[in-house]
């Protein structure tokens, strides 16, 4: 089968749905001729033109608001927010409007809006350009959240998102854009709410999100050399979250480590851990551990490497939990 980078897989998903859905419109900044800050939109402007691949002024809040307006009018819209840190300037539109309108207007409108936003946690771009804020959005009911870690999942989840009627936050770690995976040429989609086991193991389950998945796989590989069999599970979506899938792995291994780039406190790891305690307490052979970004504003420069988890500290955690 052919391989595609995650960037190209996302591009293909968008392109195919742009062809299938004449009213699908892309809004954002730098998404036109420029092809998107990280190149995900490459070629779409040339194929679909400035009406549908619509560059606009720098105003994230109203851009999301316009996207919602298109969506409640029966069109479908994709908005790009260039760094996840900038969700802060559109927060009300995302969590109080997009997430809730369908519910509180009694189902009269639907909001088929997809908000794409990259996490740039591993580039040293500093305190306002490095954050992984997924737990904020998981906290608020009404938003579906996809957070794929590879090209195959990214395309399949994007397809589902672009065919459904609910608002979706689509989170992409830029470090993954260049990574490749086999992607079928035939059409496929991946349902939300199904975790994927990327590596099977019996001794400990590592649930890894987004940019930490490659680190988790590398740590699992090292652990195997030390005789520890690590199961690596990628939830792929956070809302809905595949509690049952994670619990099944935990029941098998009896140990759980959750890893993400986001700040530790009130991050997604705490939520997954608590859900597991609520459903699989008797299977826990050890306290659930988390390996996460530190609770510090991320400094600019190379020091980011000490802020986000890596294969080494993950391996340490694996070794400590099995002992």
């Amino acid at each position, binding site marked *: 089968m052919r391989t595609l980078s995650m960037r190209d897989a996302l591009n293909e998903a968008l392109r195919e749905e742009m062809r299938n859905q004449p009213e699908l419109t892309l809004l954002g900044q730098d998404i036109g001729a420029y092809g998107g800050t990280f190149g995900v939109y490459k070629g779409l402007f040339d194929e679909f033109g400035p009406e549908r691949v619509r560059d606009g002024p720098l105003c994230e809040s*109203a851009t999301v608001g316009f996207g919602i*307006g298109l969506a409640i009018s029966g069109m479908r819209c994709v908005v790009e927010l260039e760094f996840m840190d900038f969700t802060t300037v559109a927060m009300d539109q995302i969590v109080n409007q997009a997430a809730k309108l369908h519910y*509180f207007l009694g189902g009269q409108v639907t909001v088929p809006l997809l908000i794409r936003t990259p996490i740039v946690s591993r580039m040293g771009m500093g305190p306002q350009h490095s954050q992984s804020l997924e737990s904020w959005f998981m906290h608020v009911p009404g938003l579906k959240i996809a957070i794929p870690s590879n090209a195959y999942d990214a395309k399949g989840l994007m397809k589902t998102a672009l065919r459904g009627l609910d608002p979706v936050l689509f989170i992409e770690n830029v470090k993954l854009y260049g990574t490749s995976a086999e992607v079928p040429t035939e059409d496929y989609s991946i349902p939300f709410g199904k975790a994927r086991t990327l590596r099977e193991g019996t001794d400990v389950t590592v649930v890894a999100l987004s940019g930490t998945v490659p680190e988790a796989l590398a740590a699992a590989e090292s652990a195997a050399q030390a005789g520890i069999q690590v199961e690596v599970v990628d939830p792929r979506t956070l809302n809905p979250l595949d509690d049952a899938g994670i619990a099944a792995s935990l029941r098998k291994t009896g140990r759980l480590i959750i890893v993400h780039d986001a700040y530790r406190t009130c991050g997604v790891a705490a939520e997954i851990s608590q859900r597991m305690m609520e459903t699989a307490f008797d299977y826990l052979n050890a306290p659930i551990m988390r390996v996460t970004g530190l609770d510090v504003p991320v400094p600019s420069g190379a020091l980011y490497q000490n802020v986000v988890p890596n294969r080494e500290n993950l391996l340490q955690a694996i070794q400590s939990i099995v002992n």
Partner: protein
Amino acid sequence: MSAKSPLSPEELLHLYRKMVQIRVFEEQAIELFGKGLITGTTHPCIGQEAISVGVCAALGREDQVLATYRGHGAALAKGCSPATIMAELLTRTTGCCKGRGGSMHLCDTAQGFLGTNAIVAAHIPLAGGVALSNKLRKKPLVTACFFGDGASCEGEFFETLNMAALWKVPLIFVCENNGYAISVPTNLSQATPDIADRARGFGMTSVVVDGNDVVAVHLAARAAVEEARHGRGPIFLECKTVRWERHSAFSAGRYEDPEEAQKWKRVDPLPRFREMLLSSGTAAAQLAKVDQDCQEEIAAAVAFAVQSPSPDAASLYEGIFVE
């Protein structure tokens, strides 16, 4: 209204009927709030009826309206049924939003009434997106967006002015300048008297009108709708009015001085219009008949609302997502 009135007797009577309908509706809402039948809050638009009535009478049924929490009047003016709106105020399952939205969240898509919002200014970009959808789909529809003087200080308002002007969307900004944002008078929130000036900075046609003169509002709105419908929008309409004696049935607003609280009555658009109609030859009996009709209609709406069931807790998880 002399023989030279640009409006027909039927048109004038329609304006009168809608204004009375809203007035009676609001009086009842206040009473129901006092009786504890409305939980939370409710923001009457008493004294501002001429604006929503004058504007909406210039729109067709498929044209769209978005408004604020002070939006009962806009809903009725746009043709929503008083019964389902009243039931919504009482959060009953028969309400336009199934009782989930309450007084601040009304919607009736069948009437082109796309919703009221409780976050000040958040609906303005939504209206921009709705108008953009009309333009992209080449539908000859116009969107009107109502908001207050307070909203005109929020960033999203300006962001939308800019985008709307840039993309020339068929949108009418209707600013209901009632002189107050809760307790803050406009002289403490803006340096210049006319909000319309700000819209001009974006190269937009911008008009100031006496918001307590329903005919003046209506004629200005007609002209604006005509412009917008022919692709010469957006248009800004600042309607100067005076706020009712309180901000909401729940909070008082600024008026410590009982005199000031009565100020709106001295410029009340309803008796003023009634005077005008009488002096231009409309029979008093005809107006009395309208008054009577409205009283009956709203009484029936109240009865309907009060007799309707409240949603039960089991419904809470329904409809967060479409699928």
